[in-house]
């Protein structure tokens, strides 16, 4: 098992540090991204990644490393703060920028319309959150978000219970 960890929490956050140390010690190979040290702009919704430069975002910032990582690693662990019970905007910006993983083409999946995936990859995501998250809602949203990329949510956990993620990966 190898993991990509994307943290929108500060690199010196003690809880995040503990979680990163724990997770990286339990897998064969891992890579950690701290978005605080990267430039990831919000998605503009320009559709260039679908209709102008298929698969590539029009914004040339550090998003590409994360997008490639989604294709390279077995699972992606998202470490996020929370806002209004949901993930923090910094993490939502990361997720919004994953749109190039889907194509403009549409198909029907389980009775709903979906975009056809661009790559043959079983994406697997885990969310670890700090602060006051609405866990029930976060689980629901993770299920829905991963559905859009034909992926799977492996679970949602408060950061202090990061040990529990091992049951899923």
């Amino acid at each position, binding site marked *: 098992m190898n993991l990509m960890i994307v943290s929108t929490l500060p690199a010196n956050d003690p809880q995040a540090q503990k979680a990163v140390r724990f997770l990286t010690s339990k897998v064969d190979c891992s890579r950690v991204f701290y978005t605080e040290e990267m430039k990831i702009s919000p998605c503009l*919704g320009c559709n260039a990644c679908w209709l102008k430069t298929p698969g590539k975002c029009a914004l040339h910032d550090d998003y590409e490393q994360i997008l490639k990582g989604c294709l390279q690693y077995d699972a992606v662990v998202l470490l996020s703060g929370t806002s209004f019970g949901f993930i923090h905007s910094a993490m939502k910006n990361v997720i919004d920028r994953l749109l190039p993983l889907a194509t403009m083409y549409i198909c029907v999946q389980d009775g709903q319309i979906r975009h056809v995936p661009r*790559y043959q990859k079983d994406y697997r995501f885990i969310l670890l959150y700090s602060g006051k998250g609405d866990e029930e809602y976060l689980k629901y949203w993770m299920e829905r978000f991963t559905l859009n990329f034909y992926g799977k949510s492996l679970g949602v956990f408060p950061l202090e219970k990061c040990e529990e993620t091992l049951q899923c990966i």
Partner: protein
Amino acid sequence: MHLTIISGAARPQSRSNTARIIEAFSEGIHAGGHTTEVWYLSDRRQWGQARSAFEKNENILFALPLYVENIPGLMLEFLEGLSPKEKPGTKMAFLIQGGFPEASQSRCCERFLKTLPQQLNCAHAGTLIRGNMFGVRLLGKKLGGRLVQPFTDMGRLFAEYGEFRPEIVSGFAGPEYLPEKQLRQMGGMGNYIQRWSMRIVARRLGCREKLDAKPYHEVSPVQRKQ
């Protein structure tokens, strides 16, 4: 009523579907002699005024495109900068527009938005949902105008009731899921037609690549340690 409308769309106003919808919706509001002010979060220079308008006014509408099952990250960032209102009495309503036709696509976002006003010491004044909005700008002024025209009626009704009434919202949202027959039609010939028409749109936008190109296919999976 004076309504503060805040567009949560990240696309610049001149190319934004949400902006076109806001225009149509505002027409309906104005028809009853009511007034509006609109702020666009795509322009960060407007954030300060949008924040003041939120603090000052009691009728707030956020209009937004659906982004990965929730609000755009940009709008969430703006909301994080707001403080809960000191006095109760402010009503927050929402308008979600999405590309897919089914109302069910927006339910996850709707559920989040239902919890939001309370966290800012406001009351929830309903959420209006509408799908099939992808082509508003792409289809040009005339055809795109037809897509947004129904929002004028919604604006008129919103001004009349001061909120989005559930019975009006449910009728406006369209089908929760598409009927079996329609889904079947999307396969075979329907699939061919949608791919062909999207390729035409892409060509018009200057795209010379395949729409299902895989620019990162050379990225190889990380090897496990031996």
